[in-house]
């Protein structure tokens, strides 16, 4: 033992003169670090109540609860997370996975209360002292548990697509479909927005797990046109998909297609069954479009004998005659239609109600009637010269093409309109070899067509002129030409706060010569088939047949759906109208109330 060993320990005495390390008032002097995982803060305006935080919480510390002043709306369940601090461990997994990026943690860590039930609180809604704190853990920008990017749908290039009528979207491979399906967090918020309320998270999960049979069954519970909708649906569901809040929404439409495309027609009967018990009642459906055939499907499944009257010689309605085959090939539409017919739904083609069969007779001979005749009357331009022979209707052009009659459009075509029919007419004209100009009276953002259609039409080389109002149509230099004078429009704000109106600038007009002009500014319904004795009870307002609960009209046994009844005017709405009318017809015929109090 050396001297050093005896003396060295006394060295510590030098520290007696040091300032103590302890802090007297830590909570005030020493707040939590910037990233400290403290108490929860939620921006309840940003939050959409998807419940993914609840799903990932490892200790079941979160409940989704109703909040005073919040109710469900499209894209928002109206629920908000309530945290139970008796169970929370502040791991911030909920913050990492939050789809809206509304949830974070503050850097507060001290909370004293005499009532233990206080420790369950709705972050952001209940008034907590740390609600306004700006510090605290947030998900780092470079750390992401969700996958924001979508698997790209393989498409024909614009050069390829505009040269043929081949389907432009090629479809996901099974591997791509599973990868895309994996992105779904199964919140179910999309279901309310889908007009048919398809069980989207469930069929996406079935696809991911490779259970195509269960997927197909799930699809048919709400939609017998999944091959069609998997291609051309307006996919409103995708607009509210929570993955879209921080990335690209799940490609729900393409995933639906992936299920249907992988199940051959021949397997449908085995998987979906074909039980159609007969209950002895008969229903007539007018129109073999998506609305009529959907009603037919659900009615037949419930045991009704169904007969569908179709004026044209093929089924499908707007799907057949309005949507070109490069968006919806005939075979894929037939896949949906043929299965419905195979269940024993009778379709009588080339039979127009009103002229071939009186409406009243139909109503008397059946237990119920469902009207889904669609809108086939092109809206007039109401300008001078529109009767010129080289002014064609968009619907007529599309119908001709669908029937294999390639109309003579010439080399220079002008299309007037901004909806899907206009886009389809333009793209069809391209494929028939023409240079196309699209004239639309308002701005791009006002165009009612699907954004993808607008984009693809331009990619295929159509010239889009917005804010252009047709003024008059006149003779061309030769009979095979036609001249159109159109004027530029200024958008003028609406004093009442509605959307801006286009105002023609008289001095800025253009006159152009085309080989033909295609008018596609809208369609209206033809209700002449309804005889006077029904007109007092079947109300028609703003060009639509009015319906109440379960699609019922003023006449108890007459129901209506599709474009003649609703304002959303897409296939999926027509499909749901048909399904809902089937529910209503079933209720009426089994003695239950149809009209809801």
């Amino acid at each position: 033992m050396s001297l050093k060993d005896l003396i060295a320990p006394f060295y510590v005495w030098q520290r007696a003169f040091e300032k103590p390390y302890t802090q007297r008032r830590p909570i005030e002097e020493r707040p939590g670090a910037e990233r400290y995982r403290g108490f929860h803060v939620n921006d309840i305006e940003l939050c959409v109540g998807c419940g993914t935080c609840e799903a990932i919480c490892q200790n079941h510390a979160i409940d989704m609860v109703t909040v005073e002043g919040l109710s469900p709306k499209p894209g928002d369940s109206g629920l908000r997370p309530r945290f139970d601090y008796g169970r929370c461990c502040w791991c911030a997994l909920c913050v990492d996975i939050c789809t809206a990026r509304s949830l974070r943690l503050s850097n507060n860590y001290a909370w004293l209360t005499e009532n233990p039930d206080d420790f369950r609180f709705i972050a952001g809604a209940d008034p907590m002292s740390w609600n306004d704190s700006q510090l605290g853990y947030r998900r780092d920008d470079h750390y992401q548990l969700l996958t924001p990017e979508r698997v790209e749908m393989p498409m024909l290039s614009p050069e390829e697509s505009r040269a043929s009528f081949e389907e432009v979207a090629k479809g996901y491979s099974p591997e791509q479909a599973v990868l895309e399906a994996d992105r779904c967090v199964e919140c179910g918020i999309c279901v309310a927005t889908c007009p048919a309320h398809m069980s989207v998270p469930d069929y996406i999960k079935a696809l991911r797990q490779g259970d195509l049979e269960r997927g197909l069954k799930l699809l048919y519970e709400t939609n017998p046109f999944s091959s069609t909708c998997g291609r051309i649906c307006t996919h409103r569901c995708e607009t509210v998909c929570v993955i879209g809040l921080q990335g690209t929404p799940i490609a729900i439409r393409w995933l639906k297609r992936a299920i249907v495309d992988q199940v051959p027609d021949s397997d449908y009967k085995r998987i979906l069954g074909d039980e159609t018990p007969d209950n002895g009642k008969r229903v007539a459906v007018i129109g073999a479009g998506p609305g009529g055939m959907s009603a037919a499907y659900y009615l037949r499944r419930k045991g009704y004998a169904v007969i569908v009257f179709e004026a044209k010689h093929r089924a499908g309605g707007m799907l057949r005659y309005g949507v070109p085959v490069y968006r919806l090939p005939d075979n894929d539409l037939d896949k949906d239609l043929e299965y419905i017919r195979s269940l024993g739904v009778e379709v009588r083609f080339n039979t127009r109600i009103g002229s071939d069969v009186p409406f009243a007779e139909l109503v008397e001979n059946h237990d119920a009637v469902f009207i889904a005749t669609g809108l086939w009357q092109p809206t007039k331009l109401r300008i001078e010269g529109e009767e010129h022979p080289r002014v064609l209707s968009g619907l007529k052009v599309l119908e001709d093409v669908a029937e294999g009659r390639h109309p003579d459009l010439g080399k220079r075509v002008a299309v007037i309109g901004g909806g899907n029919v206009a886009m389809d007419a333009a793209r069809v004209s391209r494929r028939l070899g023409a240079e196309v100009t699209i004239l639309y009276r308002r701005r791009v953002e006002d165009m009612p067509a699907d954004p993808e259609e607008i984009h693809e039409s331009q990619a295929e080389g159509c010239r889009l002129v917005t804010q252009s109002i047709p003024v008059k149509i006149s003779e061309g230099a030769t009979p095979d030409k036609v001249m159109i004078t159109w004027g530029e429009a200024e958008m003028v704000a609406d004093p009442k706060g509605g959307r801006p109106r286009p105002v023609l600038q008289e001095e800025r007009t253009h006159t152009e010569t085309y080989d033909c002009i295609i008018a596609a500014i809208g369609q209206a319904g033809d209700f002449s088939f309804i005889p006077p004795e029904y007109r007092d009870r079947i109300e028609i307002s703003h060009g639509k047949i009015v319906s109440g609960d379960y699609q019922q009209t003023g006449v108890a046994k007459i129901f209506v759906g599709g474009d003649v009844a609703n304002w959303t005017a897409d296939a999926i709405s027509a499909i749901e109208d048909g399904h809902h009318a089937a529910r209503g017809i079933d209720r009426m015929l089994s003695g239950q109330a149809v009209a809801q109090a």
Partner: protein
Amino acid sequence: MADFKQLVEHYSKSYTIKDVREQKPSLAFLRVGKDEAVHLIRDLQETAGYTHLSFLTAIDWIEKGHFTLTYMLHNYAARHSIGVHVNIERQPAEMESIHQLWAQAATYQRELREMYGIRFPGSPRLDDDFCLEGWDDIPPMRREFDTVKYSQERFFDRPGRASEDPRAHMQQILYPTHKD
């Protein structure tokens, strides 16, 4: 690892070795029968350089009807580990002890008796409590033991927890009649 392949070849002459799998260069697994296992392990310890027992544990393959014991042996010189698997019955569960080979084995065996109900005859203090003083239920690591059920029967939740499903809630409020 070439040496490992040679090792397996060598020991396959005296033991029935199955399910040989190399997980990575430093780790391999093999399976041997219950009656041969302790011999093989002692052989590996005494002559092949696997002198360190990292751990001894069990996996409950309830659906297959057996426990799999894993003896993880490590060779410091070769920087290689072998996981020796031995399948034993779940009921009654018993295995030859290795407490004489490593001092810590007795502790592992005591824990396995408590957590899985596996007996190692002769292992010192085998029936002493390891973690669970006063335990009155089946060995808890067995897969038929349901921890949630146990805790719900013994303890009580603080009332007041209830959660709504977003999809169902939206359906009730926004489209109550659109269902079959």
